[in-house]
Each structure stands twice: as structure tokens, then as C-alpha cells.
């Protein structure tokens, strides 16, 4: 998008900007600025705007921008470029990436799938959990280059059109989040974890690991241990465990937040 195309500020936006940064408004209208650039300036203005608590500001900042198409580095030559072709949520994607690009960055920065979150970028929080070939992994410690021919599933691929995945429904019912930052990772992790349990995989708290037949039985303690790779800074753990227990058992589980 050309940053100098004609202004596309709405009247509300102009008024808000006039209030907050009057000396800049005319210059910006004169030189031309698009909404994206305007929002960038607003973010730079920072705390002041939030403090203004303007309903318009809130609307503005939460209004989705038109989604950017996957950004290809056109003719720019990369020093250590790697061509990768892999499936993301069922669709084949072909990218040319810097060899250093992690799967997390490719999803977020190149494919516009910003559901997977970057919490720590060092394998310590689980916010970036996605499934690769059906297994839950950390996309922050996965090189995109190593994903050639693989199938990646992210939080965006769990719902079928307007029907949420049962795990998503359960997180809603049980209020399995507060700020929501860890939630995509929690949900992807939980979906894959139930699959692992179905295959009979053990955990550190499994009483008898020598018994190898049949699916694993998941007590709340088992769920907590198996989900320990997903940290929730808001501490929504009791609700998360209840949500997972409900999907696992297939029976309604009491909403923990109501019983306290």
C-alpha cells in the first residue's frame, strides 16, 4: 500500500487526531496519509490516547485493518534463502524464507496467521504451540526450512467454518482464559494432548508406566502434568483443566469459577 495515497481518515478520526495532535493534523492531511499510517502514529503517541479513553479511539484501535496479503520479498535476494512448500491448515503454501526464520515468524509475519503467539521465543511458555504432522510442537524452536512437505495446523485451522472445535467451545464455557494470550497455544496443546492420551502415552505422574495397553486415563493431575508446557500468566489453570476434562470425559464438568 502506498503511504502517500490520498487521506482516508473518517470524520471521527480527523476529530480525534485534531484533539490529540492538533499541530500535526494539517500537515498529515496535506501530505496525505492512509489509515494504516495514521494508526501507527496513534500507537507511537501511546499512553496518552489510552488515557483519553475516547470511544472513538477504542473503535479505531480495535477495527480490523484490511488483511495484508502474504508478503513475498519480491525480487530482493536473500543470502541464505530456502524454498519451502508445506501445508498450513490444509492449504499448500510456498515460501522463500531466510534460513533463520522460525515457523512461528513465518506463520505470523508471512502468512498473517497471528493466532499463534510469541510469549518467550525460547521454548519456555508454550504460547506458540502448533501441530506439525499431528504432533504438538513449539513453533518458536522450529525452523521454517525444516517444514518442507509437512502439514502444520494452527489455532486458525481448528474450527470448521462457523462451528468451533469442541475444545474451543469448552474453553469458552469454562472461561479458560483471562487475557487470552496463552489461549491459542493452550487449545492446540490440549487437542493434541488428548490424542496422545488416546494412543496410550504415559506421563511422569502415570502410576504404572509398564502397563501399555489401552488409552491413558486422565485425572486432573494427569491433565496438569501433560499441559505443564503451557504457562498461563493469568493463572486460569483451574478453568483450563475443567475445560479439557470436559472434552476428555465427554460429560459436562462443573464450571470451577462458579463453585468458588
Amino acid at each position, binding site marked *: 500500500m502506498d503511504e502517500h495515497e490520498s487521506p482516508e481518515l473518517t470524520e471521527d478520526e480527523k476529530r480525534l487526531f485534531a484533539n490529540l495532535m492538533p499541530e500535526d493534523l494539517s500537515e498529515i492531511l496535506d501530505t496525505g496519509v492512509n489509515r494504516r499510517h495514521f494508526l501507527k502514529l496513534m500507537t507511537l503517541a501511546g499512553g496518552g490516547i489510552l488515557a483519553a479513553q475516547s470511544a472513538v479511539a477504542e473503535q479505531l484501535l480495535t477495527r480490523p485493518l484490511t488483511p495484508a496479503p502474504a508478503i513475498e520479498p519480491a525480487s530482493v535476494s536473500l*543470502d*541464505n534463502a*530456502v524454498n519451502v512448500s508445506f501445508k498450513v491448515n490444509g492449504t499448500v503454501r510456498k515460501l522463500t524464507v*531466510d*534460513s*533463520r526464520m*522460525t515457523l512461528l515468524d513465518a506463520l505470523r509475519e508471512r502468512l498473517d496467521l497471528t493466532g499463534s503467539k510469541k510469549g518467550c*521465543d*525460547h*521454548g519456555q511458555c*508454550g504460547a506458540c*504451540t502448533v501441530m506439525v504432522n499431528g*504432533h*504438538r*510442537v*513449539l513453533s518458536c*524452536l*522450529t*525452523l521454517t*526450512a*525444516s517444514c*518442507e512437505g509437512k502439514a502444520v495446523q494452527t489455532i486458525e485451522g481448528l474450527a470448521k467454518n462457523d462451528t468451533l472445535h469442541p475444545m474451543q467451545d469448552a474453553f469458552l464455557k469454562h472461561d479458560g482464559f483471562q487475557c487470552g494470550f496463552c489461549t491459542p497455544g493452550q487449545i492446540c*496443546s490440549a487437542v*493434541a*494432548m488428548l490424542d*496422545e492420551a488416546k*494412543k*496410550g*502415552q*504415559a*506421563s*511422569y505422574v*502415570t*502410576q*504404572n*508406566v*509398564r502397563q*501399555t495397553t489401552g488409552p491413558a486415563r486422565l485425572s486432573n493431575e494427569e491433565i*496438569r*502434568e*501433560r*499441559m*505443564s*508446557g*503451557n*504457562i498461563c500468566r493469568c493463572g486460569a489453570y483451574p478453568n483450563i483443566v475443567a475445560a479439557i476434562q470436559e472434552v476428555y470425559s465427554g460429560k459436562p464438568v462443573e464450571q470451577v469459577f462458579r463453585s468458588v
Partner: protein
Amino acid sequence: MRPFTYTRANDATSAIKLLTENPNARFLAGGTNLLDLMKEDVERPNTLIDISDLGLAEVKSIANGVNKGGVSMGGLGKNTDAANHPLIRQHYPLLTQAILAGASGQLRNMATNGGNLLQRTRCPYFYEVSMPCNKRAPGTGCGAREGINRMHAIFGWSDQCVAVYPSDMAVALAALDAVVHVRNAAGQERQIPIADFHRLPGNQPEKDTNLVHGELITAIELPPNRLADKSYYLKVRDRASYAFALVSVAAALETEGAMIKQARIAMGGVAHKPWRALKAEQLLVGKEATEANFNQAAEAVMADAKPLAHNAFKVELGKRSIVLALQTAMNGGKL
């Protein structure tokens, strides 16, 4: 991260050759340790050789050789698959527990058996490139020796380095007398007993292991044993899960009536390598499996401890952990 060339290897021979020719190249297996260290600028390879397509992932019974009747697991197999393979769960539940005590579900799905053996210390001074560290930058000094060393060694350290080796899997492998198989560029296979695989820091803390640059870990062999009925991996940490060990104990016993016929004790979180307590094991042989005898063995292990300024607690914690691990082993591995 610094720029590097990414290459996917199609066969072991060419992967080994590529690595051997370039001292600044590294194998990329699960990447869970290497990429983390590259992001921190601790590791600075100019070439990564992705070895994840080479196979070498199978868990199988050993039909011939000295370890006949034991089990072999591929160097490139995933930690999750090793821990959950019926042969391992049935015959080496100690190893299953140790692997499952480490990291998280996601990380174990990525981590490989060979990569796990070669994971580097979590010493915070090693990770922080602005700090002195003889392991990362030989000759710069040891930040932890006079710094914050709560997580560090109580056995076998030197003034050059007081770091501990973080793997849980390897502690069980030490107790089980595992053998590491490696292959070099000439196609030669070498077998390294686990006790000789990792090193004490001495004057060369930059060398974690006796592996030579260019060698590929192809398999880890577990000799047959009679310890599966009575074993336990106890891990004590600052939080209940997803944290490195303060102290861990791999304990296994073979009994005949009330008598102990054979004992294995290895500790994690206390030294630069898995710390096998051979003397204490000998003390237990021929004795009854009582708390008093377990206590005596634990005292014997800890008699050699040399705690640092902030980790004296590991001595008492270690003692109690050994006793509890042995008792739990006697109880069929149930806490």
C-alpha cells in the same frame, strides 16, 4: 541469530562428511537446544545440517552381541517415542519416567535421543554472553564460582567450572549402563559407555563430552537387566513440572527375598555429568532393603559432596531424595 546455511542431509555418510569438513557446522536434530542457544548468540554455527530425515529412529530388541536381549534406540528417535515404546516401558520403566520428567510434551515431541545427550548446561552465566564463562569463552573466568550458584554442582566441579549437566534421560541411562554408538567420517563405529561419554569440567570445561566433532550418534543401547520390577526416577524441582532438576535420583534394585542383590543409584542436578554412586550401591548389596540401610547408602553418597556458597541445601535434599527414590523403587515405582 547470525546467518547460516541450511542443508538437509539425505544420508548419514554425507551428513557426517559435511560436518567433519567444517568446524563451524552443527547437526540440527530437534533444534530445541541448538536454536535456543543460537538465538542467545551462545552458539554461532555458519552451517546447519538437518539430520531429521536420516532414519536411525527405531526402538528394537538387540539380537546379537554383548548386549543381546537388551534394547537399542535410534539416535534420531524422538524422546516421546522412546519413552512410550512398549519395549522401553516394559523393560526400562526407569528410562520412561526419566524422559517424561524432562521438559514438556511439546519439547519431547521435538527432542531426539542424541540431541538430549548433547544438550548443554543451563548455567545462566553460560547463557548470558556479557558474563564471564570458561565453558562458552575459555579463559574468561567462571561467573558462577563466586556468583549465584544455587543451581550448580556439589560433586566433581573444578575452579574453572561449577556447572551441572541438565539431562534427565541421561541420569537413567547412567543407572542402566547404557552404551552410546557413534559413527565417524571414515565409516567407523565407536561404542562409548555412558559413564565415559560426559566429562567432568577439569581444565577444559568447554568440552562437555568425549564425542569428536564430526561423529554422529546413531544409537543408544541398553543392556538387559533384572531391575524393571523395582525402579524409580525421582525429580525434585522448584515447581511441580516443566523445570530443571535441583536434584534427581535414578534408583533401581534387584532383590532376592529380603536381600538386595543389585542396586543402581545415579543422580542428576549435582554434577557436570550424571553422577553414578558406585560405592553406595556396593554398600547395599547383600543388605536388607530397610530405611536404615537406605539412609546409610545416602550418607555414603553425600560424604563426597563439596557444596558451593548457595547450594548446601542440595546435600540434605540429595540424601532424602536417594532414600525416597530407593523406597519408591522397592514399592514397584509407585510413590
